[in-house]
């Protein structure tokens, strides 16, 4: 996946490029608003990571320009501001996700990958399948190996989001934002307890667990190879 980092802090940008390459992606950097806008215009990237405050040009104006000419490349907006109204500004300008500085690299990687996946064309799926786990979005039912698993509404949404991003890391803040619609960090382990409850319903008594904890990052639904 080709990723463009528009970030004026050269050290931070270089670190991101290096870390993204290690994660198996192709990453390039632009260090000011003008070159960022120029590189974005080539349309050669799958995801753009855009800092808000850039020399020469504001990051959000570049995103607005992209959307204005019909460029739907997913954009992750980075900002040192990080308050709720800044996030709303970022999303209103056409950003697809918003991350406040300072961030953990695992958080950024998880979000970039989720964005790239979301942008991939394809019909809206009504069922998600991971191994023998099946989730039907229309009838709100979940079954594993043909056996129904009753879930609470919130557990269903949790599993739905995890399965939508199957094979990719989902962080705790991503879960809070997408499942609970909370854009603040409660700074407790509450999510972990929800996950362990869900895990006990999905994986208990199964040979091959599907719900994995990724240490220091978050969670992932993935079929374990035989």
């Amino acid at each position, binding site marked *: 996946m080709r990723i463009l980092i528009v970030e004026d802090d050269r050290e931070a940008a270089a670190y991101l490029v290096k870390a993204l390459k290690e994660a198996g992606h192709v990453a390039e950097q632009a260090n000011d608003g003008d070159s960022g806008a120029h590189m974005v215009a080539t349309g050669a990237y799958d995801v753009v990571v855009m800092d808000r405050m850039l020399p020469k040009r504001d990051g959000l104006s570049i995103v607005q320009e992209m959307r204005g000419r019909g460029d739907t490349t997913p954009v992750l907006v980075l900002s040192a501001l*990080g*308050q*709720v*109204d800044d996030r*709303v500004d970022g999303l209103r300008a056409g950003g697809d996700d918003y991350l*406040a500085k*300072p961030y*953990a690299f695992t958080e950024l990687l998880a979000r970039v990958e989720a964005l790239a996946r979301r942008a991939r064309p394809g019909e809206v799926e009504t069922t998600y399948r991971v191994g023998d786990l099946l989730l039907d979005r229309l009838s709100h039912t979940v079954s594993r190996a043909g056996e129904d698993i009753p879930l609470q509404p*919130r557990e269903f949404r949790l599993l739905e989001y995890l399965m939508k991003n199957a094979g990719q890391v989902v962080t705790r803040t991503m879960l809070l934002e997408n499942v*609970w619609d*909370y*854009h*603040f*960090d*409660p*700074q*407790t*382990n*509450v999510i972990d*307890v*929800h996950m362990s*409850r869900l895990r006990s319903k999905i994986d208990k008594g199964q040979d091959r667990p599907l719900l994995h904890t990724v240490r220091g990052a978050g969670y992932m639904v993935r079929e374990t190879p035989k």
Partner: protein
Amino acid sequence: MTGAPTREHFAGLRRLFRTTAVRLSAIYIAVFTVFSLALVVGVTHEAARVMDRQLAEAIDDDVETLTEDYRSGGIVRLLATLDERSRRPDAGLFHVVDPNGNPIAGNVAELPLQAVTEDDDEPHHLPYSRFEDGHETRHIALVRSFTLENGFHVLVGRDIGERERFRSVFRKAFRWIIVAMVVLAGLTWWFLARRVLKRIDQVSDASRRIVAGDLSGRLPISGSGDEFDRLAVALNDMLTKIGELMKGLKEVSDNIAHDLKTPLTRLRNRLEEALAGPEDAARYRGALEASIEESDGLIRTFDALLKIARVEAGSPTAAFEVLDLEAVAEDVAELFAPAAEEEGGSVEVVEDDRRHRIMGDRELIAQMLVNLVDNALKYGRHDDRAPDVRIWIEQTDRTASVIVYDDGPGIPVADRARVLDRFTRLEASRSTPGSGLGLALVAAIVRHHKGTIELGDADPGLRVTIRLPALEVVPDPD
């Protein structure tokens, strides 16, 4: 020793003339003079008109009487009446000529003949001369002429010197009044402006002292309760508020210095220690992981501080929407319930058959409840289990109360106000993780929503009551 006017004197005078009071006074005096002038001119003109009309009526009356006299007694009777009338103290002037223009009778020295021989419908002004104390003087009279049936012409009139005298007395008096008024007004304004300047100088001096750094200084209050006192009181209140804010700011920076420097020092020490010890990959890794954790904690503290600052700055209420308090509370309870149940406690919203709605920011209200429930779970612990936490919402009139209570140990009365401040961590909680900012953020959110927060006793346990302005109660749709 006062010699010739010094430069200071002139400067003082210039300053005096620059004051608003003096400028306003100048405008006032000009306007007042114009109006007075108009008034006096109007009054004298009207008075003259009334006097003219009275004279004219008297003349018309004379004409009628004389005509009547002539009809009943002929020219002899008419002349007798004229003779009798001319002896009265308020006598007017009269003049009778025969058809050829020869004077028959009268008390006028010189008169244009034409004025007598031509009949008038109504009285008009006429200059004439008459003998007074042996010499001839010029006068103006209001006169009317008429012709008798035998061809004799009669002129009757009244001198209007009285009216003219009245006018000139009025004018003279008015001139003096204007002069006296201007002088008096000028003096009044001089003293007024000096008094104003003195007060302003006092205020300026006091504010210069305050600007120079003496924040405890206050503007002088004379005690008269005048507008300067009112202004000084308002400004003093402002200074007190600024002083409080400065004090708060100082406390915050002291707290930041302490609560951020402590973990920074810890972080530095840890890294230094790792560097100093034997080269061992596992040890390095351990130190690095601990450092990341420490810096994450720092970032969280920073975020919390920023968030409190943003909420307290009262950034626009654009994000306000109609909120169903029960719905927000149930979401929060649902978020925490599994974690609480895991440890033998519980988090529940006490059901009510009504819905309570407020205008608020969903994120902030949720954050408020999250912090309160999180605090209750953390600090309300029993030795062996988590507490039972309840959220109860009720409403009286337009005030909704959100009450979060637990059955834990509670907070001692003496510490209750303190825990709402930033970075307050009670001794009992020093061992548990936390930034000491949770309740400070709650308090900021409550203030942002124009509400109040009160810490009380749930007996046992802590009860936090938050009162918020609410919309009208609606029945539960379920």
